[in-house]
């Protein structure tokens, strides 16, 4: 039975269980929901969960693990000496399962009869060609060992499928029966259901953890690889970043990139935070509902404009403008800026992009501060701005910090604006009118470059990613500490 239909069957059993248990619960309570521990729908939902969750989990596990077991057992039947030179059991097994799947496909597309699929021999048929005709990719010609293994594999898989269907549906029915037997007036159905919901919530929360784990793992091996061929001290303490294309002459120092990252992010936040925060305050506290209803979504468009537009804006408009102010022979008569690309250019433009990150979320949070807080302050003769600064903002602090963190994160992760606005040169300089670059921009450029993928110049991307990860982690710990410290719980 195809997986889709198994799932449907299980769901159907679940729905039936819902109805059965709900009515059974009502009956056991003499038709009066008051005598039940929980609402009748909870009994139904409980039955649904009982007859759906475990079977689907079993199905899932079976689909993942049983094929591995089958592979292992079939693999054990392939004699060692049949494994070709330069190949491995693993590669052969990949072929075996591909041939096996190919046979399935061939049968289902009618290119081969069931009979044939079981009896074909390499001596008489060009299996590869026949499978290629149904679009199955094979790495090499099929030899007899592989074909036999594949046929065994296929038979085992078929058997496993059958058992799986039976097991899953049986489990589903068993769950239903169990739920039925437990459905009595005093059964705590709500607690069971809520426990299940809670498990789901935890499962959702663990997605974030798994993601982190995945990120760390996917960076880790290559980072280790990098440090094996590149001295860590040099990476962390060298103050020059100048990778070269060839094997020699590269200098891969983290410091200038890190400095560029923070410098640009700080400039961006210096634009986005005040503008965003004041915009949020105005929207939440002063603006008429009409203005608010328009201005807020409009500002949010800023977050949706592709960064390439910002990049071009920085390069073509903001950069030259700044040069005309601070450049050679500029309005201010200073010679701080030599080219349009600078920390300032990228920072300003990125700041504009981040405005809605701060403004929209802060606006929601400020709006959620109870009116009684404002009344209390206004009632003793505070002006609106005093009220906002001293009562509303502190009460909304956790949310605002969250919004700022989000903006900062985005600033750290941005590449396009940096590449076009701040340039690609890594420099350690205090002058905000100089070109610099960020860790993220370099991660992207080293990863998508043309250099040898096993060379330090490419692998350094992973080390950069890892370092950035650790550093932002530390900054986030600090932010958490600050919020904990200054949080003011209203009500």
């Amino acid at each position, binding site marked *: 039975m195809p997986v889709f239909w198994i799932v449907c069957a299980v769901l159907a059993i679940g729905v039936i269980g819902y109805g059965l248990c709900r009515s059974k619960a009502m009956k056991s309570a003499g038709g009066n929901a008051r005598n039940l521990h929980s609402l009748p729908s909870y009994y139904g939902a409980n039955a649904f969960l009982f007859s759906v969750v475990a079977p689907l989990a079993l199905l899932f596990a079976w689909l993942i693990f049983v094929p591995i077991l089958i592979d292992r057992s079939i693999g054990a039947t392939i004699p060692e000496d049949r494994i070709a030179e*330069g*190949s*491995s059991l693993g*590669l052969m097994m*990949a072929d075996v399962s*591909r041939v096996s799947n190919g046979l399935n496909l061939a049968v289902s597309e009618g290119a081969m009869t069931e009979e044939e699929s079981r009896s074909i021999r390499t001596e008489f048929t060009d299996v*590869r060609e026949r499978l*290629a005709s149904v*679009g*199955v*990719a*094979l*790495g*090499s010609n099929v030899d007899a060992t592989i074909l036999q293994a594949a046929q065994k594999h296929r038979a085992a898989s078929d058997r496993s499928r059958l058992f799986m269907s039976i097991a899953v549906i049986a489990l589903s029915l068993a769950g239903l029966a169990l739920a039925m037997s437990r459905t009595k007036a005093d059964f705590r159905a709500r607690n069971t259901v809520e426990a299940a919901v809670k498990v789901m919530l935890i499962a959702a929360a663990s997605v974030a953890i798994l993601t982190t784990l995945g990120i760390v793992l996917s960076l880790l091996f290559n980072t280790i690889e990098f440090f094996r061929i590149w001295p860590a001290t040099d990476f962390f303490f060298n103050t020059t970043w*100048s*990778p*070269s*294309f*060839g094997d*020699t*002459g590269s200098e891969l120092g983290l410091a200038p990139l890190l400095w560029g990252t923070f410098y640009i992010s700080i400039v961006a936040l210096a634009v986005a935070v005040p503008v965003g925060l004041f915009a949020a305050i105005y929207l939440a506290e002063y603006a008429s509902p009409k203005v608010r209803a328009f201005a807020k979504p409009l500002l949010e468009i800023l977050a949706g404009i592709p960064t390439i537009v910002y990049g*071009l804006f920085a*390069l*073509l408009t903001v*950069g*030259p403008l700044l040069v005309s102010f601070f450049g050679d022979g500029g309005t201010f008569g200073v010679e701080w800026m*030599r*080219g*349009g*690309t600078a920390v300032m250019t990228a920072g300003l433009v990125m700041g504009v992009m981040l405005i809605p990150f701060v403004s929209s979320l802060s606006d929601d949070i400020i709006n959620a501060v109870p009116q009684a807080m404002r009344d209390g302050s206004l009632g003793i003769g505070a002006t609106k701005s005093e009220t906002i600064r001293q009562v509303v903002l502190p009460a909304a602090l956790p949310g605002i910090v969250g919004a700022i963190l989000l903006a900062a994160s985005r600033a750290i992760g941005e590449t396009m604006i940096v*590449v*076009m606005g701040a*340039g*690609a*040169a890594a*420099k350690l300089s205090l002058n905000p009118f*100089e*070109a610099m*670059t960020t860790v993220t*921009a370099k991660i992207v*450029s*080293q*990863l*998508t*470059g*043309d*250099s*040898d*993928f*096993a*060379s330090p*110049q*490419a692998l350094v991307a992973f080390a950069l990613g890892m370092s950035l990860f650790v550093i932002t982690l530390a900054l986030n710990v600090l932010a958490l500490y600050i919020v904990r410290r200054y949080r003011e719980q209203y009500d």
Partner: protein
Amino acid sequence: RDQVQVAGSSTVLPYASIVAEAFGENFDFPTPVVESGGSSAGLKRFCEGVGENTIDVANASRKIREKEIKACAEAGVTDIIEVRIGYDGIVFASDIDGNTFEFTPSDWFNALSPKVLVDGAMVDNPNKTWADVNADFPAQALAAYIPGTKHGTREVFEEKVLAVGCEATGALEAMVAGGMSEDDAEDACIAVRTDGVSNDIDGDYTETLARIESNKDGIGVFGLAFYENNTDKLQVATMSGVVPTTESISTGEYPVSRPLYFYVKKAHIGVIPGLKEYAEFFISDEVAGPDGPLSAYGLVADPALADTQSAISAEETMASGS
């Protein structure tokens, strides 16, 4: 999966996509999927193994490295067919309304090297305008937009321009005489100054073009194809007296160019429908020849195209072919 999956160099991408499109039009096979992402990333995915969830073809703007071949082999990708599709010309261009230049490698070395040879001694580069570099040039401020170190083009620029210029000006000799080892001196030759005169571009040629638009004094490094599509904005400089065109490059007159490749997994041939046909179609005379659409777009046709064609039809792998 029924379509050919290609990934790799963004320099090869335009050519590959022209071919893929025409391939999809003329064959019953679906249009191949051509991804960009850089030669490195493409080869890396190419070398991940054999099977449906790996790519069939990797485009590269450089030759595959030994280490990469080894990494491939470790993952089971042993039989690789190398295909050279032609050459990419690298040109120097500046704003259409600006001054016209006729460069030699020495000019570029003197303009961009952090240390240059002045009166027999290596000193910090004092040049501020092109006139400082070469008295024949106008007094236009030095501003160069060269590819970032991630680009294969940068390597070519270093090898065929800076290193050549270094030797021609005698700086190499002077450095070796000054006690530097040969290797160090060669490295020093291809270094560029970091005082803002030379700007690395990590983006694409469009970015270089935009930079020149915002700084009219700028001179940028472009691919020939890009220049040829933007002749309304750019004027090209000659190198050692030769104007870059597909002809002058294919004859080898114009010195700055690089070969472009793609690599095919032999194990996938005959398995992935259309893979071999795609490879053959790519380098057929109709497509990659001097009159084909690739050449029209700016690819410098490979004079030895016929050899490549026969190598492909024989499915010669790198080990057996070379």
